[in-house]
């Protein structure tokens, strides 16, 4: 119920035909509506406010803040330690004594609170770990203390970011209020051309439709182009759903989703998609087959241009990785390009794999060797540079091309630095040339 406008959809006509599994009139449901009606045990409509039980709560270092709030409210027990995941990723390894002390405090609390799923600093960036370890499953309602919790929509999970105070409430009660969001739909058509990636798709959408097109809404990415995308590629798009305002960024949970989840976690998963007669507030069509590499220019994710308009812009740093584009296929796409040359001496390339699993797989596939020999510095999985906290920050006047998700002013160090966002292939090609480069031309 928080950020959502109310009353806005009262003029919409939501009459839909059919019989309900709950006994009333069955209305065709979007994925978001299905999730909330299952959670509250009755049909729900967009714009309605519900209090829903939470399937899983994910906390990174923000755990410390939520816990202090719990203590001050006189609550000393977590509602269900089996449904809580805690790990460290924003400040790994601890860059200051203060943060080391905060992490020590969290470790001590975790042991006494009995949190069932604690991954510490060793597994990687929270969203990647949530998916790899099988916590994010189709239809699950998941909240996390991070705006990119919407990444889990790639697996059909209703993941969304909340703040530390609301998380404290969730830890105490196991439930939270929500506005059932209206849903918009992006129909992705056709196959991506060579060296054009799902990152280019979501940047294209942010550029064309703006960073508020999905404000307070749920998105479904559907169509033959969505089906054709790998699960990893879908994760990049869902990850950036929040950059266009979305509460959720769903793909249908299909055969590929179930294959990805096989062997991850104990719970079973079933396919999930909207009903054929579900109602959408808006539908947009995106032709993937004609897409060129896209770049978001400073200082907005919506300031998107085709590669041809920005190529040649000199860079000081290239950053590959993060929860947006630090998966195996991302590193593989970059390695394909980086094996053709060396990063010039006055350009730096930093690589941040999204997780330990990705790191090991990249090592076994020889990708880390390619990066290292190309002159890259390979770092551990962390959020550090992406949000300007530590490692890989920019000096005043410097320019970076990055595969991360935000290029806000001051986001990656100096407020007088510039961050361009692009795909892993664009980052790799640009690193080799020392200037923003079309990956199709290397």
């Amino acid at each position, binding site marked *: *119920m*928080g*950020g*959502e*406008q*109310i*009353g*806005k959809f009262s003029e919409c006509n939501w009459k839909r035909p059919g019989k309900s599994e709950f006994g009333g009139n069955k209305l065709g449901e979007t994925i978001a509506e299905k999730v909330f009606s299952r959670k509250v045990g009755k049909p729900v409509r967009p714009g309605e*406010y519900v209090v829903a039980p939470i399937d899983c709560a994910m906390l990174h270092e*923000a755990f410390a*803040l939520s816990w202090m*709030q719990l203590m*001050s*409210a*006189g*609550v000393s027990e977590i509602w269900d330690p089996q449904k809580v995941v805690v790990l460290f990723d924003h*400040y790994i390894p601890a860059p*200051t004594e*203060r*943060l080391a002390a*905060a992490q020590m405090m969290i470790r001590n609390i975790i042991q006494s609170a009995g949190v069932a799923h604690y991954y510490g600093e060793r597994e990687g960036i929270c969203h990647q770990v949530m998916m790899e370890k099988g916590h994010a499953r189709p239809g699950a309602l998941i909240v996390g*203390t*991070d*705006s990119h*919790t919407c990444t889990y929509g790639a697996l059909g999970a209703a993941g969304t*970011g*909340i*703040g*530390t*105070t*609301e998380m*404290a*409430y969730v830890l*105490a*009660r196991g439930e939270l*209020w929500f*506005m059932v969001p209206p849903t918009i739909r992006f129909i992705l058509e056709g196959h991506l051309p060579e060296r054009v990636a799902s990152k280019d798709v979501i940047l294209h959408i942010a550029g064309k439709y703006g*960073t*508020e097109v999905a*404000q*307070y809404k749920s998105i479904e990415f559907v169509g033959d182009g969505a089906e054709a995308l790998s699960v990893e590629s879908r994760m990049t798009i869902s990850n950036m759903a*929040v950059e266009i*305002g979305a*509460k959720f960024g769903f793909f249908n949970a299909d055969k590929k989703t179930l294959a990805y989840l096989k062997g991850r976690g104990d719970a079973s998963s079933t396919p999930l998609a909207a009903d054929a007669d579900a109602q959408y507030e808006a539908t947009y069509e995106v032709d993937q087959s004609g897409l060129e590499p896209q770049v978001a220019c400073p200082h*907005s994710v919506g300031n998107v241009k085709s590669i041809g308009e920005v190529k040649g812009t000199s860079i000081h740093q290239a950053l590959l990785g993060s929860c947006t584009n630090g998966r195996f296929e991302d590193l593989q796409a970059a390695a394909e390009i980086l094996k053709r040359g060396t990063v010039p001496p006055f350009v730096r390339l930093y690589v941040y794999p999204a997780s330990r699993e990705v790191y090991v797989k990249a090592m076994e596939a020889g990708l880390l060797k390619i990066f290292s020999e190309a002159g890259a510095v390979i770092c551990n999985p962390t959020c550090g540079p992406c*949000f*300007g*906290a*530590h490692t890989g*920050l920019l000096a005043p006047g410097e320019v970076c091309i990055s595969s991360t998700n*935000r290029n*806000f*002013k*001051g*986001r990656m*160090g100096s*407020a007088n630095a510039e961050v361009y966002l692009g795909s892993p292939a664009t980052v790799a090609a640009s690193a080799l040339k020392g200037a923003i480069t079309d990956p199709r031309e290397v």
Partner: protein
Amino acid sequence: MDYLKITGPAWTFGNNVDTDQITPGHYMDLPIEEMSKHVFEPIAPEFVSDFKAGGIIVGGSNFGCGSSRETAPDALKFLGVAAIVAESFARIFFRNAIAIGLPVLVCPGIASAVSMGDELEVDFEAARVTNLSTKKQFQATPLHHIMVESLKKGGIMKMLADT
């Protein structure tokens, strides 16, 4: 608090004010007394020294977009921001503000109708914003009653502690 109505001078901002601009990432681990000295540093470095407690921030569209960091509304509240009114908010910022008891209201048409320093009256229960300097009135989007309750109590943790 019986009735939620706030009066104060306007501090105007543009569209897409993000939470990295409100509390930049490299100050986020500092105590709030220190962190709040850097509020709006990338876009309005003079804000912290000029702002006086009781002021009302008026934003354009998508106020508070980006990171879910609660330090953003926290630091604004710490500096004494009495309320924020905007064309639209990013949803996580909006939720966080309600959760910590910082009054926020969506008010279409407000950004272009308010100048820096105008005296505003924000009536959260009637969902109405009045620019006392220009005598113009604007209909805002009503808050759900649970949000109003959270704001009156000073945040959801106070609600939790009371039950």
